[in-house]
Each structure stands twice: as C-alpha cells, then as structure tokens.
C-alpha cells in the first residue's frame, strides 16, 4: 500500500474530520482576529471610537494616521533601531558561536573538554537572574544607552555553540583530512568547507537569535535611557500610554511595528517553523 492510498483511506475513516476542521478554523480565526482588528483600527479616522463592534471594520478608512505617525513620532527610528540591533546581534552571534564550535569540533588543543564544559555551564545561567549585575558591568564599560550595550551582552550563546558543534562533528572525517592534506588552512577549511555544510543549523540559530532580539524587552528597557535609542518593544508603551484612551493612534503604531515582521513571517514561514523545531528550545 503506498502512502497516498493510505492517506485517502485515512480520510475516509475519520468520522470526526469535519468536526476537527471546524475546530481548527475557529481557533485560527480567534488567533488572528486581534491582529486583523488592529489593522482595521489603524486605518480608522483619528479619534474614532464605537460601542458597535461591527463599526470597527466598516469604512471610512484613511491612511493619514500612518503619515502622521511616521512624520511626527520616533516610530521609524525605533523600527530602525530594532532592526539594526537584531541584525548585528544575529551576525555576531553566528560568527563567534560558529568559530568556537569549529575549534571544539575540529581542532586539537589542550583543555578542550574543560573549555567545552565551561561553555555548557552557560545553558544553566538565566540572563533574567543576572541582569542587575550585568547592568553594573555594562555601566562600568560605559556602554549603557548605546547599541553596543544592547548587542554585546546577547551574543555569547552557549546553545549556538552546542548545536553547531554537533553539526560540525557530522562532517565526514575524510573531507576534513583531505583538505588538510592539500595544505588548506583551518580558516579556509572553516568557511570554505565546514560552514557551507552547516547552513541549516546556521539558519535555525540565526532565525532564533533574530526573533529573540527583536522581541527582547527587559534588557533594552533597563539599559536604554534616550528615546532616540529605544527599540520598538520599549518605545511602543511610551506611545500607548500617552494616548491612552484614544484607539487609533496606538493601534497605528502597533500596526507599523508589526507589519514588517508579519510580512517576513509570511515569506519565511517554512524556515521559521523548521528553525524552531531544529533548535528545540525557546527564549
């Protein structure tokens, strides 16, 4: 029996299939409904409010809120900050974790096991519980209220090293040995041969780091003081509380903050989902 006919059989056999589909559709709609509502509110005329739920979704629509916010607030700046911080954090994380993982996986040096175990310890140290001393340390490095202070404390990911090491371990010995026989330097071996083979792992860690940085709240909330350096998660609340009872402007701000990630998600859904099941862990 091939897989297809088995699946047809399965379809025929499940008496609750339509019930399951209905439940699935209902939950899906509940899950995306708030996001759709946000989009509709963001194009309502400024100051709009209603007690009739249907009216949130009916015209008139306007894009003037978007124009207004983009011109008169720091929101694009915050979007840019979030993006820059997330991109640099991701790149640096990938670079330093892959270099370290390569050394541990492929090079010979003394105390290798001790060093690897020392890195493993990091898995057990929760960033949230060391954030007060971290603040002091970053302060003494003069990096409070700077991009560097946002980025550097987040890049040493022990999980990244572990995942990449196990991936590099899987590179066939013969490939490595013949490259070394040909006089290939370790650096060349690293980026010409080993790294390309580890693309799926790199992509998974990259996506993970990016989402983590994009959504990071606690650390930027503590370490950034000037409004021009806020990232979106820290900036948006300022906005929402300023206009607390009005709906339209805060929702437009939320929409501006969300549209780029939603678009990115729709494009990369498969990779993101794969990346998460790959790393099997979350931030």
């Amino acid at each position, binding site marked *: 029996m091939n897989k297809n006919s088995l699946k047809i059989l399965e379809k025929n056999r499940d008496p609750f299939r339509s019930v399951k589909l209905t439940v*699935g559709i209902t939950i899906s709609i509940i899950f995306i409904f*708030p996001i759709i509502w946000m989009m509709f509110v963001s194009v309502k005329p400024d100051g709009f409010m209603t007690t009739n739920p249907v009216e949130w979704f009916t015209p008139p629509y306007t894009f003037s809120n978007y124009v207004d916010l983009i011109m008169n607030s720091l929101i694009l700046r915050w979007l840019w900050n979030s993006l820059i911080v997330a991109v640099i954090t991701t790149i640096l994380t990938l670079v330093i974790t892959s270099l370290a993982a390569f050394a541990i996986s492929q090079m010979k040096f003394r105390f290798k096991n001790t060093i690897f175990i020392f890195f493993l310890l990091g898995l057990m*140290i929760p960033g949230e*519980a060391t954030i007060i001393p971290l603040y002091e340390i970053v302060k003494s490095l003069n990096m409070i209220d700077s991009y560097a202070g946002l980025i*550097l404390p987040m890049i040493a990911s022990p999980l990244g090293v572990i995942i990449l090491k196990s991936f590099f371990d899987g590179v066939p010995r013969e490939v490595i040995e013949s490259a070394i026989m040909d006089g290939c330097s370790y650096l060349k071996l*690293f980026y010409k041969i080993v790294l390309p083979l580890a693309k799926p792992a790199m992509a998974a860690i990259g996506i993970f780091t990016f989402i983590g940085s994009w*959504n990071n709240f606690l650390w930027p909330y503590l370490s950034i003081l000037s409004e021009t350096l806020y990232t979106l998660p820290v900036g948006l609340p300022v906005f929402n509380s300023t206009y607390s009872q009005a709906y339209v402007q805060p929702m437009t701000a939320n929409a501006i903050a969300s549209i780029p990630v939603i678009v990115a998600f729709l494009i990369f859904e498969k990779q993101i989902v794969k990346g998460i099941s790959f790393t099997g862990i979350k931030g």
Partner: protein
Amino acid sequence: MNSKKKAWMQDLRALPFLLPFFIAYLIFTIFPIFKGLEMSLYEWNLVRKLEFVGLENYTEMFQDEFFWDSLWNTTLFVILTTPTMVALALVLALLANLNTKLQTFFRGSFFLPSILSVAVISFLAIFMLQPYNGLVNTVLQLVGINAEPFWMADKTLAWVTIVVVTLWWTVGFNMVLFLAGLQDIPESLYEASEIDGATRWEQFRYITLPQLIPIGRVILLLQILASYKVFAQILLITGGGPGGATRPLIQYIYEVGFTKNNLGYAATMSYALFFILLVLSIIQLRSQRSEGK
C-alpha cells in the same frame, strides 16, 4: 620540534577561533554571577557601591512580604500557564498536522502571534478589554451579557487576562515542537496498527501519545523555566496590579533596583531567582540527557 612546542602551536592556532566567544561569554555571562554575589553583600545604589553589609540583604529578603508575594505570583503564573499551555499546544499541533489544504493556514495563524512584540500583544489586550467601549465588552453586550467586566481591576479577571494573553502569544512555539514530535513518529507504527484493526482513538492513545512523551517532557520543563522569567506582559498589561496582586518577582526586583535605587537588595533577590532557575534547568538538562538528546 619537540612535543611541548607542538602542543603550544596547536593551542595558538585554536586561540583566534575560541577567543571572541570566550571573551563575550566571560564578561557578560560568567562574570555577572560573581558580580551579583558581591553586590548582594553591599549597600549599593544606581550611582555607586556604598558600604559592606554582610548578609543583611539576605535577612531582609526572608522577612520581606513583598518578596514572598511576588515570588508566589510568579509561581502562580507557572501553575496556571504550564498545564494549559502544554495541553493547548498538543491540541493545536494535532489540528495543524491534519492532512488538509488548510494546513499552512492553521500553522500560520497558530504561530503568528508569537512573532509579535510583547508591547504589541499587551496593548492589543488592553484595548480589546477596555471597559464600556472595548471590543470584548461590546461583543458581550451584543450577545446579551450585560456585565461590564473591568478586566484589569479585578484580581481574578486580571489573572485570567494575563494567562489567556500569554497562551495566545506563546503557544505557537510549543505547538511547533509538538508538530516536530508528531512528524518523527514512524508511519510504519500506524500502518501496522491499521492491519491489526486499531481504531483511530486506539491509535492516538497507544501510538501518538506515548511517542510524544519525550518531546512533551522537554516542552513541559522549558515552559516552567520560561514562565518563571515572566515579566514584560504583566508589567505592560496590569502593571502588576490591582494592588500588586499580579506583580511577578522580576518586576519587584526591577522596582527595588531602579525605582527604589537599591541595586544591592535587587541583586540579592536575583540570586533567589537564580537558584530556582538553576535547579529547574539542571532537572531539564538531566532529563534531556536521559533521553539521549
């Protein structure tokens, strides 16, 4: 070349590969643990170190009812979210694994909230739950429920809000993990049971569920660990209120450190959190290892 010199050469070659990670790791991951210990033994404010106080911060912590209250609130959050999260994630994963044209739609919409910023999801919740003209209350009116719930002002409702919003926001991650587990179950198990005439329920009960136990255990522990770190959505949705009834430990630590200008005591309470999380993650690593993962 003698062997000692050769070993040195090898070390030297590995150094540039190891050093960038090692330095960042040492400064920002390892050093804070020792720095925190030092801070907890001092009177220490936002500007500088003041005076050595020995274990005074620790005795203060054990007598501080706000510390115990916020630790209990965090624990309550863990108790409320963990079982609901795991159960919902499993249900969503089963739905998202159905063989249907809607599969991508299901997966996408279950996961979509997870990528939104915590500020966005928190303010969506606040605005939808606004009394009098918030969407949820007006819909309640429409279907004939005339209660006008003040979602953030009532202790129980505030917890309901926080838990439901957290489920909606983060269940997608756990669903994806379950989904990966579901796809790892060998097709042959189902085929064999088919031949034996097993019903769908029996297949679920005796194949799917037992096969999901390893990944389920990982999800459970990760969830407990993640929930103990709860902070942002509570701060933004209820501000810890009403009257501190939902304030989690991290928020209290933050307030003591940065509002009350007492970093020494904040570092002390961080240590308490550190030990709770340390024990949990040791348990997690142990159980992951015992699965050979």
